[in-house]
């Protein structure tokens, strides 16, 4: 009841009086979506279409970072996180008029359980311990039982679109604010308002305010910026620092800076025992003092200032300060201390020989840093890191590679020394990063798919991550995750460098835009975005 009241007040407060109805919002997709099936969506364009056209049982409010009722008016988690019971909203209809019931939720879970379905949302509800079970109690009540406790269970429903069991249109019948009206492959999607969308404005009129959303497929980011400046599009969900500053010069009200994003930039050393590297390099890379020394020699402030023009925040660990609940506030970014780095290296036998650093076995210390080509900001970061490490006598060779080649090296051949890359975090809950932290996972980048943890600290991370995933107590989970962050800070398997800021842009024509750090940053509240009084929206 309290939750409902809070949600109602939040909704009331977020709706300006006298908002303008109608108009077509224009924005760009950066590629053709690979699928229009909401349960298969895995990349940004497909997820954008899914977000604009679907509704979920529970939605995460991107501003408060808290779950809110959507198709479910209430829910209760019991049995230590194994069971969730939903009370569904009454009178909701799909876009073709088919009534929404608990049968649709059960049907969606049936589809989700199909072994052939391989997608992030399907994987987030799967468990190696068995299959989930749905029990429909009535048209508006359903219980879902999981084979094992699921941490952060309610938040997982944010990305799950509910499909209709009975509609002849199948997944094309939607519950979200818009529906796909036209699509010209490679050119655009035209979404019309869903006439049956259940949310209403305070006066009782059905949302969304907008008549339509037009998504132009635009792969070139410079063109996207140009089109915003020309008034041909109204929003850009993510923009680069360089574009942000350019916009700030000539359209001061257009750019938004929502502060540190959830996406870190980091580098790591190859610690794969079978990697085709000389033994002395393997010894350096698996040495904690070596990694700490490299980390301490990097000027994070310069990376932020020069590579990101101050539109980033130095990083301390794997959880962004933007993630209010899970961030470990006891950690702060490693200080730039080249003298300290040299002392640390001297303790394990490295020594300076003229301008070069020499290893205990006499080799000059040098390595190649690979990164993906075509990313100007990352290229600048790599060049700055190269300069910083030269100060302590480490020679760094830079090797930008195209993405498939880079993936091949870090996942198959392991033929690399160190890699500079970013990480995409779409979820606030650390459970979504299980595949990074478990030593057995293929995404445990520095040494993937280990049959048994190679080090004691990796075994400890495995234990803590499994413990937090099995607990329904948020405080206990937080303790475990804080400890993981501390271990990662000390051991530095990933040398976290910075969190780039969440930057977006909107033309002055719009009102109600509330940029957030979670996807979709600027249109997460699309049903409440509208054109400002007097602005043309066609």
């Amino acid at each position: 009841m309290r939750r409902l009241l809070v949600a109602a007040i939040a909704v009331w407060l977020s709706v300006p009086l006298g908002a303008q109805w109608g108009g077509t919002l224009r924005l760009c997709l950066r590629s053709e979506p690979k699928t229009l099936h909401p349960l298969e969506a895995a990349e940004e364009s497909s997820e954008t279409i899914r977000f604009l056209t679907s509704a979920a049982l529970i939605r995460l409010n991107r501003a408060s970072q808290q779950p809110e009722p959507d198709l479910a008016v209430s829910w209760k988690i019991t049995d230590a996180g194994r069971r969730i019971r939903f009370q569904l909203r009454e009178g909701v209809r799909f876009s073709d008029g088919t009534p929404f019931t608990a049968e649709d939720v059960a049907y969606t879970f049936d589809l989700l359980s199909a072994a052939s379905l391989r997608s992030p949302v399907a994987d987030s509800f799967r468990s190696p311990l068995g299959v989930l079970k749905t029990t429909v109690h009535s048209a508006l009540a359903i219980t879902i039982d999981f084979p094992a406790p699921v941490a952060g269970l309610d938040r997982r429903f944010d990305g799950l679109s509910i499909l209709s069991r009975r509609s002849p249109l199948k997944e094309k019948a939607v519950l979200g604010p818009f529906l796909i009206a036209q699509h010209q492959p490679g050119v655009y999607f035209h979404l019309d308002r869903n006439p049956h969308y259940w949310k209403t404005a305070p006066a009782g009129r059905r949302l969304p305010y907008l008549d339509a959303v037009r998504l132009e497929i635009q792969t070139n980011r410079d063109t996207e910026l140009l089109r915003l400046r020309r008034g041909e599009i109204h929003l850009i969900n993510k923009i680069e620092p360089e574009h942000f500053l350019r916009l700030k010069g000539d359209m001061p009200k257009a750019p938004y800076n929502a502060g540190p994003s959830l996406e870190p930039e980091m580098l790591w050393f190859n610690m794969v025992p079978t990697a085709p590297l000389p033994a002395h390099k393997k010894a350096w890379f698996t040495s904690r003092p070596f990694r700490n020394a490299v980390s301490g020699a990097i000027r994070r402030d310069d990376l932020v200032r020069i590579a990101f023009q101050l539109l980033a925040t130095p990083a301390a660990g794997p959880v962004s300060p933007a993630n209010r609940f899970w961030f470990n506030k006891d950690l702060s970014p490693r200080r730039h201390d080249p003298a300290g780095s040299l002392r640390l290296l001297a303790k394990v036998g490295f020594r300076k020989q003229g301008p070069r650093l020499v290893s205990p076995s006499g080799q000059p210390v040098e390595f190649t840093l690979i990164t993906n080509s075509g990313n100007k900001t990352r290229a600048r970061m790599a060049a700055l890191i190269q300069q910083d490490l030269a100060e302590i006598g480490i020679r760094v060779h830079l090797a930008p590679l195209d993405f498939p080649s880079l993936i091949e090296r870090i996942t198959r051949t392991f033929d690399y020394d160190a890699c500079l890359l970013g990480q995409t975090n779409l979820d606030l809950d650390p459970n979504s990063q299980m595949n990074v932290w478990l030593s057995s996972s293929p995404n445990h980048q520095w040494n993937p798919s280990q049959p048994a943890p190679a080090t004691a600290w990796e075994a400890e991370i495995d234990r803590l991550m499994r413990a937090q995933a099995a607990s329904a107590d948020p405080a206990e989970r937080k303790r475990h995750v804080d400890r993981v962050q501390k271990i990662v800070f000390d051991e530095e398997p990933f040398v976290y460098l910075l969190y780039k800021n969440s930057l977006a842009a909107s033309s002055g024509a719009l009102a109600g835009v509330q940029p957030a750090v979670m996807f979709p940053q600027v249109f997460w509240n699309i049903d409440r975005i509208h054109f400002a009084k007097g602005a043309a929206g066609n």
Partner: protein
Amino acid sequence: MLLLAGLLGATLVRFAPGFAVDERELDTRLSEETLNAVRAERAADAGLLAFYGNYLGGLASGDLGFSRSLNRPVRELLGERLPATLRLVAVGLLLGWMAGLGFALSGAAFPGSGVSAGGAAVAGLILSVPAALVGLAFLHGGWPREAAVGVVVFPRIYSYASRLLQETATRPHVLLARAKGVSGAALLGRHLLRPPLGELAALGGVTVSIAWGACIPLEVLCDVPGIGQLAWNAALGRDLPVLVSLTLLTALITMSANALADIAAASLRRPG
């Protein structure tokens, strides 16, 4: 020849670094089981013999395979994108030919007027600019993309046509016509343009290939959803079925254009 060109293209892509990887492999939300399934899917494409067997088998029934990077049948992708590129090429060629031939004819019809020198200077300048840069200029200027193709083919047409027409202009029959007072359209059409028509038709075939090749950078930069953009994305995604099909299509178009040009040239050169 066509098949050989396609198969060679496929072989080169197969051995490019990162051939059997998938960007989804870095998606931390996917489970180990899913990642293994994704890898198995990609590994299935790695065998060249199996690929060729399946591709050629499908080709016989009009099936061009499935694009894993775009998650669509290749035939659908080509069908959707071909019209945009054909339009770009057709309009671009028309503009390029009008400008190139127009300048060349003016230069030949009015020797010493400065048109030849001006045309040569412009053609030389454009010839030294890569198609991608032309595309960027058109993008930032907000000018029609078709005209960019025209700009790319213009110097080739102008240089060749200008040389041919200037040679023709010094032939005795043209000099005689001028001496008899023939000028304007009659001089251009009957005496200057008619003799080199066969050679110009042959140039037509070549310019189709040039315009088609220019579409890759132009479509990528100007965001035209055509064959060029598809080729670029397929190369980045190491998408073998798409690349083989595009190679075959390109070879088919080039050879058809040249064959048509040869036939036209032969019939135009025929006396009478």
